[in-house]
């Protein structure tokens, strides 16, 4: 039971961060109809900036500046590239984002090299134990911060002008434009929000129990993509559910590796994709995608 609870808690904390990344993925798709593959490198950019700036600026300021840098990078990608290609086919835009991702990633990997850059979180490697179940403080704080951010996001999405404009654009772009909604602005803001969410996820992903910033941090985003897709690419709620589902499935598959031996070693690494494929077989638009679409 202890093992199960530990794995569940670990899965939830991992899932919360996947959800943050997946949410960014979804809002970019909703606002600009781009399947953005830049998220891996944006995540790494956030982590790298925070780690590098921690020494001169201290943790708190470095975190804020690092998040701002990532948001600005996302904004620049949207303004300089995506906005100019408005109207291009979904597949062309997706491949453009892969190109941007590779360029940014190559530079970051070159800069990081084989170092492990540590982010000096004030809570460092501390842990909390309830009975026999232990979790790092970093992960606990991550769950809390993710919950607050996701809550704020949903509130903004529902009540703020930007949220309404974005939902209107996603429902029917042309009519929204005729109603005076500036799609370019909606799209740019969506990219900025996605950048912020990725950087916040990065801030916790590089803390205990993960070792710090290394090029492998990038791989986390690859697991958040299936979270967004299985939740429904145009469903913000789906991103949250998808993130948690993937996080928990992955932690369980890794923790019960011995019991799942008949599926082969290293099964946990493919779990996100198996869950995604299984869901898409039965619901091609994802868990929550269809519901949103039937209203059109």
């Amino acid at each position, binding site marked *: 039971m202890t093992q199960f609870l530990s794995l569940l808690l670990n899965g939830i904390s991992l899932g919360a961060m996947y959800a943050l990344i997946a949410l960014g993925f979804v809002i970019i798709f909703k606002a600009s109809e781009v399947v953005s593959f830049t998220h891996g490198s944006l995540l790494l950019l956030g982590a790298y900036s925070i780690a590098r700036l921690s020494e001169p600026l201290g943790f708190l300021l470095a975190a804020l500046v690092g998040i701002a840098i990532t948001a600005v990078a996302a904004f620049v990608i949207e303004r300089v590239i995506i906005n100019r290609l408005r109207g291009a086919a979904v597949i062309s835009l997706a491949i453009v984002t892969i190109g941007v991702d590779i360029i940014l990633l190559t530079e970051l990997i070159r800069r990081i*090299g084989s170092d*492990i850059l540590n982010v000096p979180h004030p809570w460092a490697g501390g842990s909390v134990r309830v009975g026999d179940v232990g979790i790092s403080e970093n992960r606990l704080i991550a769950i809390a911060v993710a919950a607050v951010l996701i809550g704020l996001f949903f509130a903004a999405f529902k009540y703020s002008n930007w949220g309404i404009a974005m939902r209107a654009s996603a429902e029917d772009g042309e009519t929204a434009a005729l109603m005076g909604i500036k799609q370019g602005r909606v799209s740019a803001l969506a990219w900025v929000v996605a950048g912020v969410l990725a950087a916040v996820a990065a801030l916790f992903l590089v803390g205990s129990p993960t070792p710090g910033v290394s090029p492998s941090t990038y791989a986390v985003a690859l697991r958040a993509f*299936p979270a967004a897709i299985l939740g429904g690419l145009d469903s913000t709620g789906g991103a949250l559910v998808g993130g948690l589902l993937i996080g928990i499935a992955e932690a369980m598959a890794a923790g019960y590796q011995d019991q799942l031996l008949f599926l082969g070693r290293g099964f946990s690494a493919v779990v996100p994709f198996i869950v995604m494929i299984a869901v898409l077989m039965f619901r091609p638009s994802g868990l929550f995608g269809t519901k949103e679409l039937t209203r059109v």
Partner: protein
Amino acid sequence: MRLSKRSTGATMLAAGLVLAATGCSTKAPESGGGGGGGGGGADVQTDIGVEGQTIRLGVLTDLTGVFAALGKDITQANELFWEDNQVCDTYDVELDVQDTGYVPQQGVQLYSGMKDSILAMQQTIGSPINTALAPEYESDQIVNFPSAWSKTLTEIPGTGVVGATYDVEIANGYDYLFEEGLLAEGDTVGHIYFEGEYGANGLAGTKAVAEEMGLEVIEAQIKATDQDMSAQVTQFAAAGVDLIALTVAPGQTASVATVAEAQGLDVPILGSNPVFAPGLLQGPAADWLKTHLYVASPVSSFDAHPELLEQYKEAYPEATVSLGVVVGFGMSEMMKQVLDAACENGDLTREGVLNAFSELEEVETGGLVVPIQGFEVGKSPSLQSFVLQPADVEGGAKVLADAFEGQFAEQIAG
């Protein structure tokens, strides 16, 4: 309904691209062999890579990829060594240093550019690149020192693994733990290892020891990109392991230490030599590592070789040194012994160097690298290992046990 179709299509596209992005593969092209000619001393025969009194050696290292820091340390140590040393007091050595960025294809291309002007390879970094170049090294009769310790590398004629292979190495680590009373017969061991040759080779060592000592082994295979070891350590804690064995990279080591500490899993951690990097001592896991991690290693640390550290820091004052420097000096010393022997045989041709390499026995590097018995194809070149532990010293580790041959080594080496 337009949006519905489009959205579904985009979902499928994204799913497909994600799958494609995570399942990339690398396949190295091959290129043909070749040769050239050169001058040489009066009574020493030479062919490729020797011009007058200068021998040219190739270095395929990583200066911009994931192993850039390590590659830089090894290469600078190679350069520093050859600045001060000559082959049979006659020939200077010049290095042709090329950066592969840890991309096998790049390595193959760079080798085809340099192969007509070099006598041998002072260094080739990374198992994938060594494996990609194996057919060419074999057909070109190249003597090469890799900075990896996989058993498959010993299958390449002319390739000299600088110490014991991973299976022998970790078995020596077990031996140390048994001797020190940190592990007992019948205990349970949880081993986290990378998929692929490196991990499999380390795990083979654990399994061999387990068979001898009745250990129960819980295996946890991971990918090199997995960074969070919570689930694996949780599994080990539930199984009540007495030791965690690692054949991974430093990132995973740090994660294992922080999770073990968080879960109160107070057991020793034994690692293959690549599990540790000095950078770990700046992280939150530092204190746990300094008391719990034991690293079986083919090289010594700087606390046993202060003069080496001094020399290196003088030449490269800005560098943060790692034990890669010791590896670099050690492999250059071995190359010198090979070339000296070939020179004494009067044959500094590639074939002559390869023969000298194959005939080499009992290679000593002044305690930098474990003593090498000889380079026999398919066999671990050494049966000995050092045991190191992280500490607040230059290079990040202190020596707990000098080079020794554990009780399991010979049997595993075959």
